């Protein structure tokens, strides 16, 4: 079988597992084979759109835990940023109210 046909078999997925492992070794070593692979990946890519779309669950924390052994620090999203900003505004407002109450007490001699 030609390398072109082998590449197509590999990209389609009909190649048995052991042959696939062997072929992937060749891919790492042979630039011309990688060119053929890229051609078939691109040619057959429209077939990736044949399935009914579904929303993905957010499994990133589990994946990161498996890869890095710890839960990643929470990412700063728009929502968390808004929450933080809201907390800061609330604290400043409380501080202003407390200062006014204190100054009012001082002025009145309480």
């Amino acid at each position, binding site marked *: 079988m030609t390398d072109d046909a082998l590449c197509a078999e590999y990209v389609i997925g009909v190649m048995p597992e052991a042959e696939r492992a062997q072929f992937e070794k060749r891919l790492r070593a042979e630039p011309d084979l990688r060119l053929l*692979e890229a051609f078939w990946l691109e040619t*057959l890519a*429209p077939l990736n759109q044949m399935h009914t779309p579904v929303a993905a669950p957010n499994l990133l924390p589990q994946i990161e835990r498996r890869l890095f052994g710890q839960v990643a620090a929470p990412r700063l999203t728009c929502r968390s940023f808004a929450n933080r900003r809201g907390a800061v505004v609330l604290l400043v407002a409380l501080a202003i109210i407390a200062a006014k109450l204190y100054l009012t007490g001082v002025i009145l001699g309480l």
Partner: protein
Amino acid sequence: MSAALRLVRAPAQDSTALLVGVAKGSRADFARLYDATSGFVFTILNGMLRDRAESEEVLQEVYIRIWTKAHLFDPTLAKAEHWIAKIARHAAIDVIRTRGRRPSTTELDDVGETAAAPQRNPEQELLQKDMSNLMSKCLEQMPPEKAQALQFAYGYGYSYEELVDKFNVPMNTLKSWLRRGLITLKDCVAAQMDGA
């Protein structure tokens, strides 16, 4: 373009830059890549495996493979979404081969949340899905059984043996179908690109 295709469109071009960042060990780019591509990947997995829980397990495996194999990605040769789709499809095929069975008709009807598509089995989906115009034209030029064999192999991870059973033809005939079908497809795509 159908609503379904708009929903499942391939990730944006900057996925390639993110994947290059992942190859350099950037965890931030890895997280952004997950956000950008997980819907695309999960759609492929759910379509091939027909089992949401199993697809979720494989989704994790796919991103672990992406992290560990990102250094093998060459942005001068391939687009990130094509490389990622290959990783996803091969991971799904590994599971299909290991479990050694196909979902029953009932299981096919229970596939997770869908985008308002009443069709639920592979044959119907193959007929009704809208793919790119170019690919559709090229598949139409093939004899129907060859086009179907190609789509069952690519879209549902059918092995040669399973295709032989499904189409009830000898192995040599089936292999010949696929090879000739691929040559037709290759020539057709090249001709369409030249004519564009």
